[in-house]
């Protein structure tokens, strides 16, 4: 009779233990981030991989999202004669919410998976052990550059994505919905505040940190063989995506619920 309760308890304990491990891993990452040696070349390489090479996927996501958002707001707004709010809502919606969240999710799919697979394979083939025997700390050499690079470059990606998303809205607004080009741009700028943009960038930094952290955590804790690396990759993407959505709610609550 107690079996279901025991199973529930075991699951809860395992989940809490997992959470504890992730928090310790995050603290250890931050500690290693602040103490030398620093690997500048690895940071530059990671920034290129995570930031620069994610530009196309983030840009395309933002472009189509901005366009679809303009269509939706236009048709929704038409119900109460508020079609004119399209530029404002597209801008606010993109920079506050959709830019960071969708950009973050796309980067999570692209980057958390590749980090977990790379580090997981390194673990399985004893490359992590080899690093240690060559007096190089794997956290400093592998985790810190990736986490730092993602924390620094994802906000930049978000900024670029915001701009492209607003441009997508502009294209649809002026091309399909008959907005005047100058009026659309004026409306976009008029009601957009500094904090709208800055809050989105802060979200981007947090998402970037979480994405690379999950990739590294699951990679470093990968099981044996191809199956272990596959499971680590899947878990990294799932965990990064869920954490992005959860932390997005918390950050939105902190920034805007007043």
């Amino acid at each position, binding site marked *: 009779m107690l079996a279901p309760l025991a199973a529930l308890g075991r699951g809860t304990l395992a989940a809490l233990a997992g959470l504890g491990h992730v928090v310790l891993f995050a603290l250890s990452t931050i500690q290693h981030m602040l103490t030398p*040696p620093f690997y500048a070349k690895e940071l530059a390489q990671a920034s290129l991989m995570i930031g620069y090479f994610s530009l196309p996927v983030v840009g395309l996501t933002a472009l189509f999202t901005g366009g679809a958002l303009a269509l939706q707001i236009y048709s929704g707004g038409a119900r109460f004669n508020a079609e004119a709010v399209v530029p404002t809502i597209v801008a606010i919606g993109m920079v506050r919410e959709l830019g960071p969240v969708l950009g973050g999710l796309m980067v999570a799919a692209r980057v958390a998976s590749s980090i977990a697979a*790379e580090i997981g394979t*390194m673990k399985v*083939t*004893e*490359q992590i*052990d*080899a*690093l*240690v*025997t*060559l*007096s*190089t700390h794997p956290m400093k050499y592998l985790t810190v550059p990736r986490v730092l690079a993602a924390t620094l470059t994802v906000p930049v990606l978000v900024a670029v994505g915001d701009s492209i998303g607003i441009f997508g809205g502009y294209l649809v607004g002026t091309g399909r919905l008959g907005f005047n080009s100058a009026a659309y741009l004026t409306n976009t700028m008029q009601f957009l505040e500094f904090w709208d943009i800055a809050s989105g960038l802060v979200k981007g930094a947090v998402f970037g940190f979480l994405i690379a952290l999950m990739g590294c955590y699951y990679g470093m804790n990968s099981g044996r063989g191809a199956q272990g690396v596959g499971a680590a990759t899947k878990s990294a993407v799932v965990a990064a995506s869920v954490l992005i959505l959860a932390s997005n709610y918390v950050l939105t609550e902190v920034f805007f619920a007043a």
Partner: protein
Amino acid sequence: MIELKDVHKAFGPNKVLAGVDLKVERGTSTVIIGGSGTGKSVSLKCILGLIRPDSGQILLDGTDIIGQPSDFLDRFGMLFQGGALFDSLPVWQNVAFRLLRSPRKAEARDIAIAKLRRVGLKPEVADRYPAELSGGMQKRVGLARAIAADPDIIFFDEPTTGLDPIMAVVINDLIREIVTEIGATTITITHDMSSVRAIADRVAMLHAGRIQWEGPIGDLDTTEDAYIRQFVGGLAEGPIEAIR
């Protein structure tokens, strides 16, 4: 100079090391033999600090190194079973990995090429990536990396596993030559008896998590120890169970 005292290590219910005692003198080449899964690799990883033993002592020049900062690893070189080369780096950066992060950075590439030549690889190999090399070449690059910073102590984990018989002889001879040349203390783990005869000054046999027999290579063929007799003779019948 390296001494293991009553080292225990279990993974869950599986007791891998059950009180290992082993002494390796400076400048000697010790080979640890034993069947698969008897704890050979775990013993090496315990010394390197990659695995923390449950109990016991590991002394390096008389100092217990368990749980100590890994500075002592500067004196070590290690050849991993699968090579464990960093596949994101070209061969020469693999070999010079430690040098590139030391004051000898400027001469790192030249030293790497010299070490590659020492293990019989041409300088052209230096700019290739590990994935472009054959298994034997990867092993040689791993060997070059292990000796690149002229370590005092070198560990070889199954140096000939997965190689053809000719390449195995080449690697064995290289190890013997290099060890004599730089006067390093070495521990090799293997179950290849030709390696044992080529490399060893002393042999230790690990069985059921303990050192079952230990002695000079000359005694290997004369000892009455039933475990050694069975292992060296490659016999299915004997005290070591064939089904594990």
